[in-house]
């Protein structure tokens, strides 16, 4: 019909679509665990693998590194707002499209790493929970346990601990990493359903 602008029907997603979260402070170990989780979730089915969604896919933190020298340091809150913006980008361009195609996607890291970092920095858990309300709950969650002192040479926790409030205090930086790892290692409370921040019309 002329003028009919209805979109074509969306293909029905395959049932094995799954979001797997892998969290931890040691980025290389998190990546290795993500690869293993992806292979284990889709054994012998490369077509069902949506891939791994990694930190800073949006390039926000890369840009931040360039800007920071003159602009003044970022606080833990600022860094987490930026992490959330990066995660929203990953969800839009990597995670949701893969899930819609019925594939398994591993988010490494996902929400728990950022929340643990925020808790280690002393931020209220209610603020952190609200911040990540837009992120869907993962069907599977893994935490990579690490000897924190040797870890965090790369990835969000290392970056954030290095940059928070200027990061000049080496002991404070190491304490943040250790506390983040300890919080991640704690048993997690039962999952509650997250509400989308999109207003209901």
């Amino acid at each position, binding site marked *: 019909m002329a003028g009919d602008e209805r979109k074509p029907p969306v293909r029905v997603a395959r049932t094995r679509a799954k979001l797997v979260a892998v969290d931890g402070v040691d980025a290389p170990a998190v990546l290795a665990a993500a690869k293993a989780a992806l292979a284990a979730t889709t054994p012998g089915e490369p077509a069902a693998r949506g891939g791994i969604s990694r930190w800073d896919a949006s390039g926000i933190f890369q*840009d931040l590194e360039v800007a920071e020298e003159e602009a003044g340091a970022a606080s833990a809150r600022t860094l987490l707002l930026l992490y959330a913006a990066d995660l929203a980008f990953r969800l839009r361009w990597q995670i949701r499209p893969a899930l819609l195609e019925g594939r398994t996607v591993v988010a490494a890291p996902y929400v728990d790493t950022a929340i643990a970092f925020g808790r280690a920095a002393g931020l209220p858990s209610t603020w952190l929970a609200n*911040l990540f*309300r837009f992120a869907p709950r993962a069907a599977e969650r893994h935490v990579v346990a690490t000897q924190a002192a040797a870890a965090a040479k790369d990835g969000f926790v290392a970056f954030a601990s290095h940059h928070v409030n200027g990061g000049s205090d080496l002991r*404070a930086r190491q304490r943040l990493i250790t506390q983040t790892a300890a919080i991640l290692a704690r048993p997690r409370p039962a999952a509650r359903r997250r509400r*989308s921040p999109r207003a209901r019309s």
Partner: protein
Amino acid sequence: MSLSDQTALQRARRLARQRFTDPKRKRGLLVAFEGPDGSGKTTQRKLFKTWLKSEGYDVVTTKWNSSQLIKPIIKSRKAVRALSPEEFSLLHGADFRHRVEQVILPALWDGKLVIADRFLFTGLARDVARGLDLDWVLRLYQPLLWPDLVFYFAVSPITSGKRVTATRMPSFYEAGQDVTDVDDPVESYQRFIARVIREYESLALIFNFITVDAEQSIGEQHRQIRDLFLEGQRRPWSPWNIEAVAEWLAMNGNRR
């Protein structure tokens, strides 16, 4: 010092209360100018600043989306139209937080008068007009820092549209083209600004803004703002601000 150090936070709360409620000390004041594009806020802000300086105030100005750290990140993503409503909201929240910590709170602590050309209410109005939930957006801005006075420059969507399009074409996000799906920037702006103004009007009621009729002459508005400021500056410091100040102090190791 970490924010998880409860003793440091308690000390910071005590210091904040002392600093902002000491009757012997001239305390910092925060005045926000809010309103849609084309409402004349910037003109009034400049006039107000000149007058305040002539009255002996030490004035600091901060503008929306102006953090040296975050602004370049937002600008490059706006240029390629790459932001979803959530990303738009979160990045502007980060910009605001960085300015609160680096510009606004240090100036208030030093007893200066801060004029904010747009404040967090801009984020709320625009993000809710983009379809986000007010509660989610408001909490992004916690711990909340409430201005001593909020002047809201009220204009109709038609006036805003006329004033903005008289000199330039609205940009993609300014026109809300990311959410209206309207190709023509002027038509999109008109639709989007109507939503933004509706949100502002709700916020004006909830948060008790001082509404200035921005359809009046520039001189009349300026006189009104001076009078309202002279009345309003005698208000006591809002204890709601204690958490924002305490967190900032503790973050800086109470080195103030």
